Each structure stands twice: as structure tokens, then as C-alpha cells.
């Protein structure tokens, strides 16, 4: 029995932390404190999208409609399976089926917030994100600093108490953590040089949520050793999307990829542009992205920490230069928390990013501001005067928010510069363990 628990402890906390009593105690303390913070937020807040994804899942589970979510097929399957599980374990969930199946989004939202057990339902809906979050915690501490338990613990702490993680998962209640988990698993496999498995899992992550496609070239350049590798890894990398494309073509009779390309969300990538003349324009993020990828490609010593740094740079460039939704910031966090250990300045700027994000949030309107608090009392938070009308009373709200948006971009670009400097250190004389304060 003791042997079993020893193995379990090592599997969870990693051997170097588990073997040292003081480190393991700190690990356990951080875990409990992080869990406490998460549980405090779990029952009381959500953003409309949480209800939407479970409404689509309800169409599958309660109404047997399998075509209710086309663009996010795998995410839909996961939520449907989870709702099915909830239905099996807690049959009382059937009581809210009429609310979930209500087609009028406003009526369903009001109905959902009005039910007396709304806190229970929100908790059950969000528990799956907590499970993936915990899984991410345990993967993330293995990604770097082998044989340095103190630094691993810091990485763990920075993830556990990261404000973006807590906000996106437990206040905003978005499902991005599932894709982040698959991406982290791919990173761990890449670290262990299991190149085919790493790319297969990354392909799955891409199929789950389009975002990991941004780091696919980095993965290929990191893992490929021969020309053949480049071809095989590239093909496997996009295989998840291709599989979904084939499935959607035969099952739904339409193309998933072209639907995604024509979706509003894809236009976010092209949102920042330099208008030149006539039809000529430069999409700033695309140009910056190619610059980043080429920079990585031409770096001589591609160690794993450099891959992580470039992952952070790619996602910081995205949120710095493109229109984004708050949950997209989460994609940068797994990479950043590792960099925080080497460079605390990046962490302080990340906190500034978060504070600015809370201001930028205003511009997405009541749906992401006061309506997030609606489970507590939807009437109160619907009728309370919104932040935009208050700002509009004194100043142009778009200009106000965009000032902070621009500061956010400035901070993000500065963080990229700091990480770039960190790149030099980790590729130059090996991994420099001195902290930059």
C-alpha cells in the first residue's frame, strides 16, 4: 500500500519534489490554496458561452441531435459525454433540460439564472474544467527545470495562482483548458523526444481548439531531424483537422475548414493591418508570425526551453496585435509561468496585462461584465447601470478602452522583448539559472 502511494505521489508531484518532505509540503500547500481559490469562484459566476456549449450538448443528450455543434465538434463531444455522465450520476439534471433546450437565448439565460439550484448546476458544469486544470498543473511542473525542485515548485505556484487561469476558468467559465491540456501533453512528449506521439497529440489539440496550430511549425522545427521528418510531422500535425474535415464532409455535407476560415473568429487574425495602396495591405500579425517562426527556424541551439519561449512569443504576439477574446490570453500562460521563474519582470508585466484585460473587458459589453455575476441575482445585475453608459457619460467609451488596449499591446510587446533577451541566455551559455529581478 505504501509503495502504491509512493508511486502515486511521485506520479503526481514528480519524484524530486515528492522525495523531499519540505518541498512536498509546500507543493501540497500550494495545491490546497489554489483549490480553495478555485472552489470559492466555481458556483457563482459564468459567462453566457458556458450555457451555450451545454445547450448544444443538451440537444445531443436530451433531443438526440448530433449535429448541434459543427465548428467545435470534439469539444461538443466532450461536453455531451460529460452531460450524459452528469445525467446518469445526478438524474435531477433532467429538471433543467427544458431550459437547456430553450431556443431563445435570452429566455434560456434568464431561466437558467432563476433556478433555485443554479449554483449546483454551475459547479457541476465547471468541475470538468477543474479536472483538466489540475491535470495541467501536474504536467506543467514537469516541462522544465529537471532536477531543480525549487524552481519546479515556483512554476507550479505561478500556474496555481495565475489570475488569468482563475478568471478564464472559474469566473468566465470557458473550455479552453481542454485544448491547453492536450497542448501541454504534446509539449511533455516533445520534451521526452517522442516526436510522433508529440505531434499526434498536438494534432488532437488542434482538432479540439484551433489555437495550437500556431505552434505547430515550432514543434516541427524542434522535433524534425531529417527532411523526411519534416514531411511526416507536418502531415501528422494537420491530420486532426483533415480527419475532422473528411468527417464533416461526409456527415454534414460541408467543409469544416472553409467554415472556420470564413468564420468571424478567423478574421481576428487578420484584424490588424497596414493599408498600403489600392488593394494592397499587410496583415501585421501574419507578418510578425512569419518573422517569429523564421527566427526560431534559424536559431542554432533549439533546446526545449527555447521552444517554450517561442510558444509564449507567438501567443503574446497574437493577443498583442489581434482582436481577441479574454480566454485567448490563457494560451500564453503555460509558457509564461515557466519564463516567470527565470525572469520575474515578465511576471509583473503579466499581472499588468491582467489588470488591463479587466479594463478592456468592458468593451465586450454587459455579457462579459455585470452579466457574469447574474447567477447571484440576475435582475440586479441586468438592471444595474452598465460600465459603458457610465464611461459614455463622460468620455467616448471606445477611445477610453482602446487607450488601455494600446497599453496592453505595448506591455505584450515589451514582454516579447524580455523573452527574446531570455532566449539569448538559454541558447548562449546553456540554461542560466540566475533569476533576473
Amino acid at each position, binding site marked *: 500500500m505504501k509503495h502504491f502511494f509512493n508511486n502515486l505521489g511521485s506520479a503526481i508531484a514528480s519524484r524530486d519534489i515528492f522525495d523531499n518532505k519540505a518541498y512536498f*509540503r509546500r507543493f*501540497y*500547500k500550494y495545491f*490546497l*490554496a489554489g*483549490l*480553495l481559490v478555485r*472552489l*470559492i469562484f466555481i*458556483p457563482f459566476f459564468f459567462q453566457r458561452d458556458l450555457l451555450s456549449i451545454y445547450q448544444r450538448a443538451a440537444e445531443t443528450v436530451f433531443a438526440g441531435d448530433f449535429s448541434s455543434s459543427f465548428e467545435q465538434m470534439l469539444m461538443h463531444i466532450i461536453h455531451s459525454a460529460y452531460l450524459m455522465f452528469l445525467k446518469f450520476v445526478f438524474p435531477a439534471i433532467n429538471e433543467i433540460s427544458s431550459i437547456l433546450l430553450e431556443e431563445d437565448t435570452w429566455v434560456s439565460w434568464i431561466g437558467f439564472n432563476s433556478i*433555485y*439550484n*443554479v*449554483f*449546483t448546476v454551475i*459547479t457541476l458544469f465547471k468541475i470538468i474544467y477543474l479536472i483538466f486544470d489540475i491535470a495541467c498543473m501536474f504536467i506543467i511542473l514537469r516541462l522544465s527545470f529537471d532536477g531543480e525542485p525549487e524552481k519546479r515548485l515556483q512554476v507550479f505556484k505561478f500556474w496555481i495562482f495565475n489570475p488569468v487561469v482563475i478568471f478564464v476558468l472559474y469566473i468566465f467559465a470557458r473550455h479552453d483548458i481542454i485544448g491547453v491540456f492536450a497542448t501541454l501533453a504534446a509539449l511533455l512528449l516533445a520534451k521526452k523526444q517522442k516526436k510522433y506521439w508529440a505531434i499526434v497529440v498536438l494534432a488532437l489539440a488542434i482538432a479540439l481548439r484551433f489555437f495550437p496550430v500556431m505552434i505547430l511549425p515550432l514543434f516541427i522545427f524542434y522535433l524534425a531531424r531529417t527532411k523526411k521528418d519534416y514531411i511526416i510531422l507536418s502531415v501528422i500535425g494537420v491530420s486532426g483537422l483533415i480527419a475532422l474535415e473528411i468527417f464533416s464532409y461526409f456527415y454534414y455535407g460541408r467543409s469544416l475548414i472553409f467554415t472556420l476560415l470564413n468564420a468571424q473568429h478567423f478574421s481576428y487574425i487578420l484584424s490588424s493591418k497596414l493599408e498600403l495602396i489600392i488593394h494592397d495591405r499587410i496583415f501585421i500579425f501574419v507578418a510578425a508570425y512569419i518573422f517569429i517562426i523564421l527566427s526560431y527556424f534559424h536559431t542554432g541551439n533549439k533546446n526545449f526551453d527555447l521552444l517554450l519561449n517561442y510558444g509564449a512569443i507567438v501567443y503574446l504576439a497574437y493577443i498583442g496585435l489581434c482582436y481577441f477574446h479574454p480566454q485567448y490570453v490563457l494560451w500564453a500562460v503555460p509558457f509564461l509561468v515557466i519564463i516567470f521563474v527565470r525572469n520575474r519582470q515578465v511576471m509583473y508585466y503579466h499581472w499588468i496585462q491582467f489588470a488591463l484585460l479587466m479594463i478592456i473587458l468592458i468593451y465586450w459589453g454587459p455579457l462579459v461584465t455585470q452579466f457574469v*455575476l447574474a*447567477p*447571484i*441575482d440576475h*435582475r*440586479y*445585475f441586468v*438592471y*444595474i*447601470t*452598465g460600465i459603458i*453608459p*457610465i464611461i*459614455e*457619460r463622460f468620455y467616448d467609451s471606445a477611445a477610453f478602452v482602446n487607450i488601455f488596449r494600446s497599453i496592453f499591446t505595448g506591455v505584450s510587446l515589451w514582454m516579447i522583448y524580455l523573452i527574446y533577451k531570455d532566449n539569448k541566455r538559454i541558447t548562449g551559455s546553456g540554461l542560466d539559472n540566475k533569476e533576473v529581478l
Partner: protein
Amino acid sequence: MANRNLKIKIVVSLALLVLTVSLLAGCQGIFYIPGASYGYYIWEEDGTIFVEWSVDRKDTKFSGKITTDGEISSYNLKEWEEDSDIIRTGEKEIIFSSTLDGEDYSDGFNFIPEDYTYLEFDLKINNNYDELSRINVGGFLENPGDCVFRVEKGYFDSVRMKPWYQKRPFSEFFYKLFANKYFTFLYLFILGIIIIEILRITVIAGKDKKVLWIASLYIILAMAEVCIYFVLKFLTG
């Protein structure tokens, strides 16, 4: 140094808590932001009835009639535009019509009713009765049940006397916590276990008689749950 940091953290946390509670309790009295808030705001101060309205800087017409079985002894206008806003007063009624726009954030009037048992309000927004509960009588979200509604004498005092926990959003929050008590107590119990566990590996780790400490903490947790049950029962009436 560590102590100082802790004190700063405590002070900041308390300040944030006070700010949050005071923001949530914005329903105390009647508070609105001209040019940002939307709807009618009606309240009483020292026997004078105030009727004001505001909109988020869009062209909107507010009109209506107030009648009473008593007498309207005097009235005053607030930010009234003589050229576009109309008010007619009689002994027992006030009829008004006013338009707000991007420049005109709010209007209103107040009057002193005497020897009355009721005031009857017939209020419209853009010539229609408001079905969205944007008429606040005596307090934020103290909405009338009907389009044309009566307010008895003493109503404003009764609203004013309402304790904070019977006002939104607290009343609804406590109701949901108590109505769903199995979840609430399980949830609090889990939070309690985590806190005890944190204490066990930090504060209690260096103490003798650890088992006694932990047992005491669990007894305190159980007692806290019982107390919370009765507190919620009291708060939800």
C-alpha cells in the same frame, strides 16, 4: 517587513471588501447616474415626493400622470426645458411630458402631497408602459407590480426600513443559498476541510497534540455550518 506586508494586504483586502459591498449595496436609498441609468426613480424625503428619470443619452420620452386623493400643495421642477417639456398641475394631479436626449441627461420634479392615503402613478416611456421593471419606487428594483400603480402613505418608510439582507442582490443570493441547502452545506464543508488541511500542514504542524487541534477545528466547522443554517434561515425570513 513580512508583518508590514501582511498588514498592507489586510488593509487592501478590507478596503476592497468594503468597496464591493458598498457597490453591491448601491440599492440603498435611491441612486442613479444621470445620462447612464435608465428608468424612473421615485423616492420620498421629508414629506416631499421626488420623481426623476434618466436615460443613457438616447432620445426618449417620459410622460405620465400622478393623482392623489389628497392635495398637491406645491411642486418644483428639476432641469426642466421650458420649450420642450410640459407639466400641468391641478389640486389632485400632475401631468407631465419630457424628452431626454444626448445632451439632456435627466429631468424630474418634486411635489408635496398633503392629507392623502395614496398616490397613483401612470408612467410611460416612449408612450408605452414599461414592462421591463425600470420604474424604481423607493429603492433600486423596488418595482411596481402593475403598469398603473398605487403607493399607499407610509410605503416609502417601509421600503426605507427594509434591512440590507432583504434588498437585492443579497436577498436573492441568500434565498438561493438556503433553497439549495444540501449543496450549500456540502460546499462550505469542502471549503472548511481545505482550510483545515492548510492549517494542519502550516500552523498546526509545529504544535503538540495535533489530533486534538484537528478534532477541535472539525468541531468548529460543524458548529459553523449549524450557525450558517440558522443565519440563512433568519436572513431569508
